[in-house]
C-alpha cells in the first residue's frame, strides 16, 4: 500500500514564497523535492563562486547571490535541510531574500526556471502529511484546525471572493456560461432558438473575455501588487490649488510618502496611508485653455487618469467664475465618484455650493461638495474623513484595478486564455456550433479553479487548498 502511494504521488520539486505577503523585510522562497539541490545549484553563486550547495552538509546556512543567467537577482542567505530531516521529509532549501516583495517574486521565478514547479496552496503541508512527517494524531490536529476554522476561513475566502479578482473572474465566467447555455439550448430546441449569425456574436464575447484574461495575466507580470490602494485623481484647471492640496494631503505626520513612477510620464503618483487605507494620489497636469481651444493633450491625460481612478477630487477656485474648461472636466467625471472641492483663497468668493449643485443637478455621477481653504488649512480633515467614509461604506473600493498576485491564478488564467483562443479558431474554421462548447467549457472550468467553483482536481490538491501557502 505504501509503495502504491509512493508511485501514485508525484515526486517533482515544488517552490513557493513562504513568507507572508504583507511583511516588508525578508521574503522566503522555499523549495522542496528530490531536485531541490540541483535547482539551487543552478541559481546560487557564492562570493568566491566556488561553493556548490549540493555538496554542503544538511542544516547549514550559506551567504551568496541568486543569479538568473548572468543577471544577479538578489543577495541572499540559503538554508539547506536534507531529507528526511525537513518539514516535508524531502530535500528542502530556503532562500531568504532581502530585496522586498518584487525581488522575492523574481527569485521565485528564477527558481521555477531552474526546474521547480510552483507549489499548489498547502502543498508543502500535503507532502509533510503524505510523507509521514505529520503522524495521525498531528494530522488530525491539523485537520481539526482546518475544520474549526473552516467557518471563518470560508468567510474570509468569501470576502476575497467578493473582492476584485473574484468579481472579475465571476463576471467572465457568467459571460461564458451564458454562451454555453445558449448553444446548448439551441441544440436542444432548434425550433425555437436559432443559431443564425451566432458565431459572429460569440466571437465578440470571446474577444472581450480574451482581452480580460490577457489584462489580468499582464497585471501579474507587472507586479502591480505594491500599488494596491484607492486611486484618487486630482483634476482641475491650473492654479486652482491642486498642488498645495496634494502637499497638504501628503504633509500629514502619519502619512508615508513614496514616489512611484506612474504609467504615463506626465503624471506623478503619491502613495499615502490613512489609518491603514492605502491611497494613491495622481496629480494631473491640469486642464488649460490655449487661445480659445481647450488643450487636447491635457484633456486626454486627465481623462485617462480619471478612467483609472476610483475617486476624483475636482478642485475649483472659488474666487473665479466657472469657465468652459470646467464643463470639460465635468464631462470627464461621467460615471465616476467625485468630491468637488470648492477651494477658497484670500480673494472674494464668487462660486457657491448651491451654484455647483445647480450645475451638477443632471450629472450622471455621484458627488459631494466640500469647502476647503489651503491657506487657512480648513476642510482637509473633512476631506480625509470623507474619503475614508466612502471607502468604509463601500461607495468606493480599491478594486477598480484588478490585479492577479497568485501564480496559480495566473496559470489558470493562461489556460482559460488558451481555451478561448481555440474557440476563436473554431469560429474562424467555421466549425459547427456544438464544437464551441468544448473549449468554452474548458475556459469556464479553468476560471472556476481560481475562485474554487470547479470541483475536479486531485484529491490532495483539493484538500490542502484550505491551508495557507507554504505552511
Amino acid at each position, binding site marked *: 500500500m505504501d509503495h502504491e502511494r509512493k508511485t501514485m504521488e508525484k515526486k517533482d520539486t515544488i517552490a513557493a514564497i513562504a513568507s507572508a505577503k504583507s511583511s516588508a523585510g525578508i521574503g522566503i522562497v522555499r523549495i522542496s523535492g528530490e531536485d531541490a539541490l540541483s535547482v539551487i545549484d543552478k541559481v546560487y553563486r557564492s562570493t568566491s563562486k566556488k561553493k556548490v550547495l549540493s555538496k554542503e552538509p544538511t542544516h547549514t546556512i550559506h551567504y551568496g547571490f541568486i543569479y538568473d543567467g548572468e543577471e544577479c537577482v538578489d543577495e541572499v542567505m540559503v538554508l539547506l535541510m536534507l531529507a528526511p530531516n525537513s518539514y516535508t521529509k524531502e530535500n528542502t532549501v530556503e532562500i531568504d531574500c532581502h530585496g522586498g516583495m518584487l525581488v522575492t517574486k523574481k527569485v521565485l521565478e528564477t527558481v521555477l526556471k531552474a526546474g521547480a514547479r510552483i507549489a499548489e496552496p498547502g502543498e508543502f503541508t500535503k507532502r509533510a502529511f503524505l510523507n509521514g512527517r505529520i503522524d495521525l494524531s498531528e494530522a488530525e490536529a491539523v485537520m481539526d484546525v482546518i475544520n474549526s476554522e*473552516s467557518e471563518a476561513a470560508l468567510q474570509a475566502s468569501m470576502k476575497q471572493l467578493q473582492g476584485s479578482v473574484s468579481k472579475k473572474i465571476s463576471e467572465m465566467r457568467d459571460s461564458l456560461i451564458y454562451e454555453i447555455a445558449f448553444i446548448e439550448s439551441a*441544440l436542444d430546441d432548434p425550433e425555437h432558438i436559432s443559431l443564425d449569425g451566432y458565431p459572429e456574436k460569440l466571437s465578440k464575447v470571446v474577444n472581450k473575455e480574451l482581452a480580460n484574461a490577457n489584462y489580468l495575466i499582464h497585471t501579474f507580470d507587472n507586479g502591480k501588487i505594491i500599488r494596491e490602494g484607492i486611486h484618487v485623481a486630482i483634476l482641475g484647471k491650473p492654479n486652482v490649488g491642486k498642488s498645495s492640496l496634494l502637499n497638504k494631503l501628503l504633509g500629514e505626520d502619519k502619512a508615508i510618502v513614496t514616489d512611484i513612477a506612474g504609467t504615463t510620464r506626465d503624471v506623478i503618483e503619491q502613495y499615502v496611508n490613512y489609518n491603514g487605507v492605502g491611497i494613491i494620489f495622481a496629480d494631473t497636469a491640469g486642464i488649460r485653455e490655449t487661445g480659445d481651444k481647450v488643450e487636447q493633450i491635457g484633456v486626454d491625460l486627465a481623462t485617462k487618469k480619471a478612467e483609472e481612478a476610483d475617486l476624483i477630487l475636482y478642485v475649483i477656485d472659488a474666487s473665479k467664475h466657472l469657465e468652459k474648461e470646467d464643463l470639460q472636466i465635468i464631462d470627464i467625471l461621467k460615471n465616476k465618484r467625485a468630491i468637488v472641492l470648492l477651494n477658497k483663497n484670500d480673494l472674494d468668493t464668487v462660486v457657491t455650493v448651491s451654484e455647483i449643485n445647480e450645475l451638477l443637478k443632471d450629472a450622471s455621477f455621484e458627488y459631494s461638495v466640500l469647502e476647503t481653504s489651503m491657506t487657512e488649512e480648513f476642510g482637509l480633515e473633512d476631506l480625509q474623513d470623507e474619503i475614508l467614509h466612502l471607502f468604509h461604506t463601500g461607495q468606493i473600493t480599491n478594486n477598480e484595478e484588478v490585479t492577479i498576485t497568485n501564480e496559480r491564478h495566473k496559470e489558470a488564467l493562461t489556460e482559460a486564455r488558451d481555451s478561448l483562443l481555440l474557440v476563436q479558431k473554431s469560429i474562424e474554421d467555421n466549425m459547427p456550433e*456544438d464544437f464551441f462548447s468544448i473549449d468554452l467549457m474548458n475556459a469556464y472550468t479553468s476560471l472556476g479553479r481560481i475562485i474554487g467553483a470547479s470541483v*475536479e482536481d486531485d*484529491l490532495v490538491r483539493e484538500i490542502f487548498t484550505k491551508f495557507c501557502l507554504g505552511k
Partner: protein
Amino acid sequence: MSELKKTYTEKVDVCVVGAGHAGCEAALACARLGLETVIFTVSVESIALMPCNPNVGGSSKGHLVRELDALGGEMGKNIDKTFIQSKMLNVSKGPAVHSLRAQADKQNYTREMRRTLENQEHLTIKQGEVCNIFAEEGEDGKKYVTGVQIATGGVYECKAIVLCTGTYLNARCLCGENITHTGPNGLMAATHLSESLEKIGVELRRFKTGTPARMDGRTLDYSKMEEQFGDKKVVPFSFSTNPDDVQIDQVSCWLTYTNEKTHEIIRNNLDRSPIYAGVIEGTGPRYCPSIEDKVVKFADKDRHQIFIEPEGLYTNEMYVGGMSSSLPEDVQLKMYRTVPGLEHCKIVRNAYAIEYDCIDANQLYATLEFKKINGLFAGGQFNGSSGYEEAAAQGLVAGINAAMHILGKEPLVIDRSEGYIGVLIDDLVTKESFEPYRMMTSRSEYRLLLRQDNADLRLRKKGYEVGLITKEQYDHVLLKEQQIKEEVDRLQHTMIGANKTVQDFLTSKESAPLKTACSLAELMCRPELSYEMLSEIDPDRPVLSEEVIDQVNINVKYDGYIKRQIKQVEQFKKIENKKIPKDIDYEKVNSLRIEARQKLEKYRPVNVGQASRISGVSPADISVLLIYLEQVYYAKEKKNG
C-alpha cells in the same frame, strides 16, 4: 392488498412488472442470461405499446437506442424490423449531435416485440395485475424481495423483481373536465400496487405527462403542408442489422404550423386546462410538453411546428406531433382546426394528460436497485423519466443488474463519460427533478466522444462481459477498432510532397496548394477535404468498410477536439474514481454544512464525483468530504502498515 389470499405458488428467478419498453428489455435481458423470468402485463395486447408518438429515436434519444443495442438490447432491432420512415437528424451540425429517428408502424412494433418475447427461452408472459410485492428481513437485518402476487391470488416467488410500471400506477387521464381512472390509451390502470410498495418502504410521488390527438387521415388536407421524406439511404439502428435490409419504400410525414388564431384559442381557454394551471413553475424552458406551455412560454413566437405522422401502414390514424394538450375536447377541435391542412379534421382519439405514481429515483443506486431493498430494481417511467428510449435503456440496465445480482456478478454501471445511458441514470439517481426527465443533448458533457456512430466501440465490450453480446459480435468490434487505429496511424504518418499531382488535385478541390510536405491526416483536417476525396492522391490505401471509413474521418478531422474532450474525461474520472465507503457516517464529517450533510445522507453517493453533482452540495463541501476521506484512508493505511 396484503389481505389477498394466496391461491397458488410458482417459483422463478426474476419477476418483471410491466411489459412496456422498459419491461421488455429487462425481461429479455434476464431470460437471455439464462434466468427463469416472468413478465407481467395487464394486457398482452399492450406489450411494447407506443401510447404516444409513433417513432423511436430523435435528438439524443437515438443515441440511447444505439447504446442499448450495443449492450445487447432489443429496441434497435425491433424498430429496424418495423419502421416506415427513417431520418438522420442534425446532419448539418457536428457528428456529436447527429441522431437517428425512425417512424414506427405501431401495431407492427408491438407485434414484433411480442413475438420476440414469446419465442424467448426462459421467458413467460403472464397477463395479470401485480398487487403485492413481498420483501422480508434477512439475517443481516436488510430487506430482501421474496416474490410478487397477482390479483387472482397467484404468488410468484423470485430472487429479484424489476418494476417497470410506466404510467399505469394509479393512473388518471385528464381531458379538460373529463377525468377517467385508466392507464394510457384507455387501458386498465394498476390500482393496488402503490399501497404495497409504500408498505415495503418505497416512497412514491406523482408525475404528469400528455399526448396529442390522433386524426382520421382522410380528413386532412396535405396539399397545405410540407412533405417530409425519409433519408435516401437509411442507416439501421442496430449494429447487428444488415444495412441492405432497411432500404425500404418509406412513407412521408407532413409539416404544418400553428398560427395566431390557434394561440388565441389556447390562451382564451387556459383556465380549462387541468395540467396547465399553476404547473409551469419548475418546468424548464427547454422542455415543453404541451402546446399550452409552448404558447405561454414562447409568447413572442407567432407559430410552432406541427408534424403530422402516420401511426402505421394499416391505419388511417395520424399523430399530431407537437400539439399535446389536456384542454377539453371541444377546445381541442377548435384549436386543431385553425392549423393549415387540419381545417376539417376529425379526431379519432383526443389528446389527454395522464397522471401516475412514480418514484424519485434517488432511492436507487446507479445499478437501479433500491438502496433499501435488496433485489428490487426499477426502470422506465416509474423512475421519473419520459420517453420510450429512456425507458428501454433503464429497463435493460435494471434487467441486467437484476441478473447480475442473482448470478453474484459485478453490476453494470455506465458512467457519464461512457454513454448517454450513464448520463440518464446518473441524472436520475443524483439530481433533483421535478418533472419527467427527458434525455437531451445538452445533458451530456462529453458528447463529442459519445456519438451515435461509435456506440458499439464504446459499449460492445460491456455487453460482451455481461453476456448479452456474442463472441462473434464482440470480435467484429475489436477488428473494427483495430482497422480504425491502423488507418488513422497510416494517415498520420504518410507524408505527401508538394508535387504537381498533389497541387493539381488540391486546386481541383478548391483547396490551397501545399507549401511544404504534410501528412494525409493534416490534409484531411481541411474542412473542404475528406478521406474519400483523398483517394486520388492516396492510391495505396487499404480496402475498408464504410463504418470504418466513417470513424477514420471523424477521428482525424476532429482529432484536436476529441483529445481535449478526452482530457476533460480524465479530470472527471479522477474524482469519479474516489469511492465513498458504503458505511460512511456523515455526522462524523465535521465541517459539512447542514444542507450538504442531509443531502449526502439522503442520496448516499457511491463516489465523490456523484456527491459533487448533488444539488445543495457545494465545492467547499466536497473539499471537506475529501479531507475526511483522506483522513480515514490514511488512518487505515497506517494501521495496515
